[in-house]
């Protein structure tokens, strides 16, 4: 009697991986470069949307910034430094260096503050979050650079300051013991206020 031939094996679309335990299948090892670029760019945009704009995940900070990245924060810090530097009429280089150093060191110190208060956050995740929260202040600094009206500057800075603090609030407050919430949040607010002062006072 004729034997039924076995069906041909399905062609595997991925390269064979060795035994278990190497993590996810090496799609990312063999993907084209353009895919990697697109993936990273879309991650920056989605992180920005998660942190700074209202969305259903805000109350669950664990989910909010799972895919942290430092490109967004890097860009926002540099942008703020550049804007402040352009607005300054003298000592442009010093302004930039001070702004960048202050923002970077500030993010590290704020993170250490939460950790020292016994809070549970991941160092890089926190740096990432604090960096993304600078986005409203970036917008504010840009507007202040373009329009030189003092009243307008004060209004814009207050609004963007409130926005930045609102963005940072859920993440920072849920990371610590409820009795220490104020201790964790107050320095963050203080830093944004000082940045706000810098923006207004820059001449």
């Amino acid at each position, binding site marked *: 009697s004729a034997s039924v031939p076995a069906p041909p094996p399905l062609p595997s679309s991925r*390269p064979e991986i060795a035994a278990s335990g*190497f993590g996810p299948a090496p799609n990312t090892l063999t993907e084209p470069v353009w895919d990697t670029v697109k993936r990273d760019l879309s991650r920056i945009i989605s992180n920005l949307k998660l942190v700074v704009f209202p969305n259903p995940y805000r109350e669950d900070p664990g989910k909010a*910034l799972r895919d942290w990245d430092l490109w967004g924060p890097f860009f926002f810090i540099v942008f703020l430094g550049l804007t402040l530097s352009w607005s300054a009429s003298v000592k442009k*280089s010093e302004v*930039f260096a001070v702004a960048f150093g202050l923002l970077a060191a500030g993010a590290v110190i704020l993170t250490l503050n939460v950790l020292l208060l016994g809070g549970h956050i*991941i160092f890089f995740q926190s740096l990432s979050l604090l960096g993304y929260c600078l986005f409203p202040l970036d917008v504010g600094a840009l507007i202040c650079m373009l329009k030189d009206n003092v009243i307008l500057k004060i209004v814009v800075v207050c609004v963007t300051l409130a926005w930045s603090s609102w963005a940072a609030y859920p993440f920072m407050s849920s990371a610590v013991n409820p009795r220490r919430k104020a201790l964790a949040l107050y320095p963050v607010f203080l830093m944004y206020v000082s940045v706000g002062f810098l923006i207004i006072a820059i001449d």
Partner: protein
Amino acid sequence: MDPNQPVTENYANPKTCFFHVLFKAAALAFYILSALFIDNFVIIFVVTVLLAALDFWVVKNVSGRILVGLRWWNEINDLGESVWKFECLDQESLARMNKKDSWLFWWTLYLTAVAWIVLGIFSLIRLQADYLLVIGVCVTLSIANIVGFTKCKKDAKKQFQQFASQTLASRFSSTLSSAFSVV
């Protein structure tokens, strides 16, 4: 041509090697030359750090994959803990990797870090705090890649050893069971 001459390997991925070296060299060159010719610290900072950041991205996401078949990143799992993930090609592909490619990869990584540290020492001697800021960022990026890829390589070796000992153990037990079944 002498047929007994050993064939010397050429670079298997010349374009990737080129980009791997390009941004590193550009960042170092720009920093050194601009310190001599440009007086504007902001431009020096932004361009150098941008080139260093691009280099970091290229090494981590492109040349690491293509030249040595390794990849590393950090994830946050469901419990909210930070987990370092390492990925590598299977053992056969790794063994087939071009030797020249991987030699270039590792050595340029080390040399760049050393170069930045040396420049940092110069800045320290001249007490230029703002240039130290630039160098600090570049050194951090270089060292991050070195640490990441070294850990990834060690992890890969460990996985291969585990796999090899597992295969050995399973083959041994199957030989034993087939020997006994014959009896």
